[in-house]
């Protein structure tokens, strides 16, 4: 069953805020504490907020299980793929080929304490995004599947 109107409305309003906050944590993984795993957990909790505020049938209209599954697989493939590109470039596995190169995420950092610039760190932001996508899909789908088990058991 769905919860009351106040909770549903607040879930609608908070979902976007939690989403952008989780993206902020994922994106700033190489500057602040946090990163892919933590930000993915935050975004997955946003999905859990929507799941708890509405009934199971309404949730199925908003969140697709197949999409989340695809998202989880795509995250892992992207993570391994970024590591594999380094082999294709003639270096070792997990080599950071973008760092200090001047292209995307390729600015260099002076030694010592400084405030940090987003456009640094090479492949690390890409890996953070990949892990974030994976964790988001995985944790959301665990909650969704457990809820589906409950609501199917009620009907039988």
């Amino acid at each position: 069953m769905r919860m009351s109107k106040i909770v549903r409305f607040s879930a609608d309003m908070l979902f976007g805020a939690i989403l952008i906050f989780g993206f902020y944590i994922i994106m700033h993984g190489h500057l602040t504490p946090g990163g892919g795993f933590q930000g993915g957990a935050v975004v997955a909790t946003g999905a859990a907020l929507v799941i708890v505020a509405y009934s199971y049938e309404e949730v199925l209209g908003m969140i697709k299980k197949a999409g989340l599954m695809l998202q989880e697989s795509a995250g892992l493939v992207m993570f391994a793929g970024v590591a594999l590109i380094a082999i294709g470039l003639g270096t070792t596995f997990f080599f950071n080929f973008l760092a200090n190169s001047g292209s995307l995420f390729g600015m260099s950092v002076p030694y010592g304490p400084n405030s940090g610039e987003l456009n640094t760190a090479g492949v690390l932001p890409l890996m953070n995004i990949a892990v974030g996508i994976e964790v988001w899909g995985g944790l959301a789908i665990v909650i969704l599947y457990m809820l589906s088990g409950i609501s199917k058991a009620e009907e039988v």
Partner: protein
Amino acid sequence: MRKSLSIIVIILFGIFLSLIAIDLTFGVPDNTGMDDYFIQNGQEQIATNNIVTTVVFDYRGFDTLGESTVLFTAVIGVALMYRKLIKGDADENE
């Protein structure tokens, strides 16, 4: 009977752990040279301010790959278990 036995085991285990904890030299690890290397060269090599992320995703990237695989496997396990439980649900997952 069983409850008192479990309490005794818990107390023994606690004494065991605290005996270990007394002998720990906390905050004075052995010299390995690895951590100094990370702190000295992390900012220059990887161009990152957050050394923790540098270690997690670059110097120890394989560990993170393993963690991701563990999470993936766990989620696949949950999905398989509930998919077997829910027969009528299979068509919408295709």
